[in-house]
């Protein structure tokens, strides 16, 4: 059985999506010349400001392109579905947003992305554009805590990019932006659960199999297997499992403030996300933690996968200011 999709051809989905994005958001976004996969903020880059370039494979919308705009990322390099962009659009993004203060690359920690962004950085070095890189590694399910550097970047991206983008907008130096971005990443924890698969537009076939009453805890946002598969539990039980892992990592003290996200992997309705949010709140209350801000909705998806993730960013004074800083993006406004 093939998954039904409203597409024209599996090979063209990304280009056609980007054409749609540009006509929907003409005041926010444009594509670099001759480089349709380099999406630049109209109102973001400016002289003296560190340029923030994010990017990755498609299929996670509104990640990445939805977070391009004033106060957040200056550009996003867009790859094919679940495939890192090649160096070309990354380079085009960097050149478009370079304001002379250097460029920061931020993206999820995946081998493909690392190789392509590294190639781009090497080529940009030849043009004397200084590039730093901060990988996001918020997925606590993807490696034990003594191997943080191996972890994947998932929905926590949103908060981490947000903090870094605010630092750029506040004209932090490249060193300081990098430091803030690393701190944001190191204090952000995500864990997800998947209930049903998604299908790549090229194949229209589910990218994993899961039983009619099973769920998989810790599944990655490309269908990479997680840490445990078991029978579907209630929303509260699932939330508890996710929050146990997250709180277990956090090392927080009562009174600490957090930013929270309950994110749909694609087809899980907001109703279910808010039911989880209710439980997240009671778990945070139990731990004495204060919700400073929260996001509930589709922020980092895997096409039409069913499931959800919970992200907690452990704020400090600086992160709180950065998270509160206004931003104005095509698909995200604060």
């Amino acid at each position: 059985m093939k998954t039904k999709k409203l597409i024209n051809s599996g090979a063209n989905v990304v280009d056609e999506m980007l054409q749609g994005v540009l006509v929907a958001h003409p005041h926010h976004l444009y594509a670099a010349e001759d480089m349709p996969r380099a999406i630049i903020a109209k109102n973001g880059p400016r002289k003296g400001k560190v340029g923030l370039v994010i990017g990755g494979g498609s299929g996670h919308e509104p990640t990445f392109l939805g977070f391009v705009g004033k106060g957040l990322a200056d550009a996003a390099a867009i790859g094919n579905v679940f495939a890192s962009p090649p160096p070309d659009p990354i380079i085009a993004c960097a050149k478009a947003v370079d304001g002379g203060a250097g460029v920061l690359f931020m993206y999820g920690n995946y081998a493909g992305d690392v190789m392509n962004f590294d190639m781009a950085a090497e080529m940009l070095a030849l043009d004397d554009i200084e590039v730093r890189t901060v990988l996001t590694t918020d997925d606590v399910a993807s490696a034990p805590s003594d191997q943080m550097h191996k972890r994947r970047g998932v929905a926590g991206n949103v908060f981490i990019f947000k903090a870094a983008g605010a630092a750029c907008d506040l004209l932090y130096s490249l060193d300081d932006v990098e430091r803030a971005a690393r701190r944001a990443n190191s204090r952000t924890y995500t864990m997800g659960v998947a209930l049903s698969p998604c299908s790549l537009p090229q194949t229209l076939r589910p990218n994993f199999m899961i039983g009619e009453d099973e769920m998989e805890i810790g599944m990655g946002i490309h269908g990479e297997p997680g840490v445990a598969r078991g029978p579907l539990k209630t929303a509260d039980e699932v939330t508890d499992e996710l929050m146990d892992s997250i709180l277990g990592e956090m090392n927080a003290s009562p009174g600490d403030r957090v930013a929270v996200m309950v994110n749909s992997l694609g087809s899980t309705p907001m109703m279910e996300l808010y039911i989880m949010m209710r439980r997240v709140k009671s778990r945070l209350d139990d731990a004495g933690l204060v919700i400073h801000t929260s996001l509930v909705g589709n922020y980092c998806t895997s096409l039409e996968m069913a499931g959800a993730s919970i992200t907690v960013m452990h704020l400090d004074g600086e992160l709180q200011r950065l998270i509160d800083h206004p931003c104005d993006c095509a698909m995200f406004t604060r």
Partner: protein
Amino acid sequence: MQAEPVLVLGLIEACRAVITANTDHLCALDCAIGDGDHGSNMQRGCEAVSAQGTALSNLPLPDAVEKIGMTLVMNIGGAAGPLYGTLLMEIGRELRARDRTDDFAIVLKKAIDAVARRGRSHQGDKTLLDVLYPVQDALARSSTLIDVARHAERSASLTAAMRARRGRASYLGDRSIGHVDPGASSCALLTTAICHYFGENHRA
């Protein structure tokens, strides 16, 4: 050193054909331990190269090979793009840097090392390196084309027993064991197709 236009075009087509015939198979392998797109990725790359066929066939061989590598990088993306792209770009550069083209095993060794550096990976990590190094080894031992191809295919199947330490499959830990690595599989398919092409057209 001018590329033999027919050679380059023939190889490109042989590679494109074997990938097209195996797109679904490679996607299925990648579904098991990755994200299911390796077949589509490789196909996209092969088609981009094919589209440049005539332009490529007029270039000197090192330039043609390097350009193929660049085309793969720019069109595949993901992990496979930089890996296969680096392999071919480095082969092209190495070929250009030396007068003797007969020392292909050495050329290949340098290129594979560049791939390993790019991937920060080693033989045994359950990647396409686990086919590339054995193939290089067979070439260095002046094996027959048929042997090289057999070697590639056996090496790919041997990745099933390995625990992935790089790429998406590494997150599976022990659960990656028992599955052939998709990159290793595409690499063996391409090696076999290339050996077959040489066997048919340019008896080495």
